[in-house]
């Protein structure tokens, strides 16, 4: 059985490193990208079962990244966990289709719980 794959997109390097380590410890295979554009470039290599993306990033933000993925048939239903320091209400104007939202700072337990839940959804969807 292959490890579930996660594409983690986060411009804040320290946060990205901590989250990536945590996810790896939990058995996920993680690919990290510092912004939306880099994430698209690494998409093939990452082949994600789940996308975790920050909203505010240089160049291509989280909303633009999700929109770009939704336009690709193989990723149209990819579960997305959006994370941001901004409140969720502030992101509504962007009409981003994501499955879960976490406002930073968040507890790592809650983060892993949501990641596990989204992975399960993906597992059922692809079965």
């Amino acid at each position: 059985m292959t490890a579930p794959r996660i594409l983690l997109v986060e411009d804040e390097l320290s946060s990205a490193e901590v989250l990536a380590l945590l996810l790896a410890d939990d058995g996920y295979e993680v690919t990290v990208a510092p912004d939306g554009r880099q994430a698209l470039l690494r998409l093939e290599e990452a082949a994600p079962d789940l996308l975790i993306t920050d909203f505010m990033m240089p160049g291509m933000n989280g909303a633009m990244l999700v929109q770009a993925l939704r336009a690709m048939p193989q990723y149209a239903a990819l579960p997305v966990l959006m994370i941001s320091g901004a409140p969720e209400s502030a992101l509504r104007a962007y009409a981003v289709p994501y499955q879960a939202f976490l406002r930073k700072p968040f507890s790592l337990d809650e983060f892993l719980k949501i990641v596990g839940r989204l992975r399960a959804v993906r597992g059922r969807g692809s079965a």
Partner: protein
Amino acid sequence: MSTGAEKTSPIDRIPTGVPGLDEILGGGLLRSGVYIFQGSPGAGKTILANHIVHRHAAGGGKVVYVTLLAESHARLFQHMESFTFFHPDVVPEKVYYVSAFHALRSNGLKGVIDLLRAEMRSHQAGIVVLDGLVMAASAAESDEELKLFISDIQTHSTLSGCTTLLLTSENADRPVSAEQTMVDGIVLLRERVFGVRRERNLEVVKFRGSKTLRGNHSFRIGPQGIVVYPRLESARRPGPTDCVQRTGVSTGVAGLDEMFAINGYAKGSVTALSGPSGCGKTTLALHFAAQARPGESALFVGFYESPALLGQVAATLGLRLPDDPAVLEFMWQSFGENMLDELAAGILERVGRSRHARVVIDGAGGLMATPGFSDRGGAFLAALTSELRALGTTTLITVEQMDTTRALVLDSATMSALADNVLDLHMMKSPRMRRFATIRKSRVSRCDLRERELTLTPTGVALVEVPSIGD
């Protein structure tokens, strides 16, 4: 050629929205300008920058806030959310926070410049903040490279019409560096040490294109963010021309009004009530304040007795102080964490707002005990009294005799220069306690210079003639 949305005049300004700061900057930051905000960690740079950008966003502008530091944006938001200027709902649409740490690590200063340029354009930012210039400086291999980095930022700021704030945690007093010579302005944030106390202050050491208020200005970080108090002596205010009038304002003390040819203190004048502790200064000040009425209100600034205690003292004297705070307003400042310019701003704001006709400052010792007074003493008091005269209010300030020896700033020459009238009070303790008053000076009105004795009547204190002190 401009890539910005609109062509801008070089004298266009962006108000900072930080109380007091625009007055110091001559109206605000220049559009397209590049500014360094410099100060040690904890000096308040990040709060100041966030205050400015959130005020800009509240006015409809857009901002990109770029960090080069390890501190996460989540932590930054946690800190900023305690301030009333911070509105999380404007993030990310109007205030967009991104990290350039990865760009710096991957592509060096060029990576940061590329990121700044792209973010300025894509967000049509009116202000860009680069928080962590010290990181860029350490990444530069030479002064030349750092200068090129700053030069690139200037070029992009000019072309996009975007004002750029560079925050650096270098000590404010370090020697002039390469980047400082190139930017349009430098604002230094420091903490001044007064014994066990520290006072935050800010200095604009360079500002191209406009006059600024030179020197140090104190500021406070509170729930509403940063409030800067322009140093009173340096603030550009209209001079007090012909504001002292030859019209008497009642002293509230029977017998004292008649000692002045105009029946009281000259309207708009400043009177010093001087004397040792217990000689009746606060008593005479309360009589003056008790004359307040609707349309002729008073402000009582006290450092010693609380308003409640002053009310009790007044009642003991047979005086009735107005209950309505719109008629008699108390501004009680206990000794402690006061700042001179904050006190002055508080007094002048109240007088200006409520058009108080009378002001009592009880007393000068409260101002003298405030850090920084020893450096500025006479000049500060002269500026304060000048402002009060300009506002047309009639002021009474009590000065304890010990004040004059404590710091040598209120010696007779200084006090004479500050006050239009000087009323000296003194005591005789033997064979029984008696208190006396003498007018030492009356600048506007002729006066009776003979000594009078204070006596207590059922309706307060009165001054009576003294036939013979030996009686």
